[in-house]
């Protein structure tokens, strides 16, 4: 459906980018974009046209902090039933991983949707179900929508949702990398629309293009960024018009607003990023696992947890190195035996790199 394949058009885009004779570095923040780029060899192709393009902190599973992993592991250890998305269960924490704990007898369920976790809670009233909610603006409304339905009180959420625009600003503020343009995640943008990105272009003079996920979408987005730069512009453009409306999805935004409020959170590899995370509003406190199990979590509340020894996920997520520059890549660290989350998640830079170039 809506197939976007056209070899001639792709060649024309590449030829125009080549003619521009530029040397630029762009960042995107989406595992699906990275997958398209590597799978179709677009990253290498664009490099030959003078364009470096890399993934920033765009993998919700990867940016969860070691502390959040320890929180969920502790709750699993204390007999709660943990429900979360597949990738999350394999992320190694300091002490263990959810998958490991499952083999040791803990109750860990992989779900496709938060609704599956809700069904578990409805079916097993005697069990305490904790849903580990990870994901950006794309996923947060699904969590909110379930909480608005008055779920049973044996259901709670360990909220690890994060927001994209504050992270983009953090990257620019840290200034470790010169970024000439951002390719913005299409599906996050279906929810938030184009406006929340605008302050970034205004404040930092960085062009941005919201892009879809077909190879042609990404080539076109790169072309649009180059065109902005050639014209001395820095604005938010939308390449993915078939799915992203300027105002986003108002209904989803409203649902999020009702349930969540922004808070300052750390991201893996990043210091605290102001207002980049979501927590449940006071009204939904009975469903907030951090409040509900405050006493149990107290034990680790003040503890700091470090990233796995030798793992450079932090640098990968800040766009400073490519996965292959990590000495553990493909040696100690493989998808079967991941050391860091970027090798676990199908959206993680290391896992994508391994998938298409190691086999």
């Amino acid at each position, binding site marked *: 459906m809506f197939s*976007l394949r056209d070899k001639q*058009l792709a060649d024309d*885009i590449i030829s125009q980018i080549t003619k521009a004779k530029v040397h630029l570095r762009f960042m995107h923040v989406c595992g699906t974009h990275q997958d398209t780029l590597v799978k179709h060899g677009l990253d290498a192709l664009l490099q030959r046209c003078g364009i470096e393009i890399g993934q920033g902190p765009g993998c919700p599973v990867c940016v969860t902090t070691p502390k959040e992993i320890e929180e969920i592991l502790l709750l699993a250890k204390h007999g709660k039933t943990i429900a979360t*998305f597949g990738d999350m269960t394999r992320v190694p924490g300091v002490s263990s991983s959810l998958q490991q704990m499952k083999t040791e007898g803990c109750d860990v369920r992989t779900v496709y949707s938060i*609704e599956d976790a809700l069904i578990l809670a409805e079916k097993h009233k005697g069990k305490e179900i904790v849903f580990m909610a990870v*994901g950006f603006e794309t996923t947060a409304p699904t969590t909110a929508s379930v909480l608005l339905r008055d779920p049973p009180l044996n259901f709670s959420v360990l909220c690890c949702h994060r927001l994209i625009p504050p992270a983009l600003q953090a990257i620019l503020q840290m200034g470790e990398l010169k970024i000439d343009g951002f390719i913005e995640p299409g599906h996050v943008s279906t929810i938030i629309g184009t406006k929340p990105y605008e302050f970034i272009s205004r404040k930092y003079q960085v062009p941005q293009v919201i892009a879809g996920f077909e190879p042609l979408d990404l080539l*076109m987005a790169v072309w649009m960024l180059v065109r902005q730069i050639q014209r001395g512009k820095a604005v938010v453009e939308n390449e993915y018009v078939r799915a992203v409306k300027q105002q986003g999805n108002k*209904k989803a935004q409203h649902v999020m607003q009702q349930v969540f409020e922004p808070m300052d959170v750390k991201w893996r590899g990043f210091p605290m990023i102001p207002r980049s995370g979501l927590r449940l509003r006071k009204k939904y406190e009975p469903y907030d696992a951090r409040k509900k199990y405050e006493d149990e979590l107290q034990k680790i509340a003040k503890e700091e947890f470090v990233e796995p020894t030798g793992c450079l996920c932090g640098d990968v997520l800040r766009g400073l190195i490519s996965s292959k520059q990590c000495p553990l890549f493909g040696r100690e660290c493989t998808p079967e035996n991941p050391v860091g989350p970027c090798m676990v998640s199908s959206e993680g830079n290391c896992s994508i790199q391994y998938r298409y170039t190691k086999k």
Partner: protein
Amino acid sequence: MCLAIPGKIIELDKKKQNATVDYGSGTKRKANVSLVQVKIGDYVLVHAGFAIQVLDEKEALETLALFREMLSLQEEER
């Protein structure tokens, strides 16, 4: 994780909360449609069991033509 798959709404409950979505080649699944306003026949993007946006069929069909036009305009400007 932000992966969203396009599909067509083929069934819709009365309250317009749940739908059956056809993803082509025989794959059909239930999806929650409470976050969008849809009718039968609409194309939606589904993420983690929820439709998150309605696809604009007209825009989708015109995407390639639009790209071509943008490129040729740029070519003329040179």
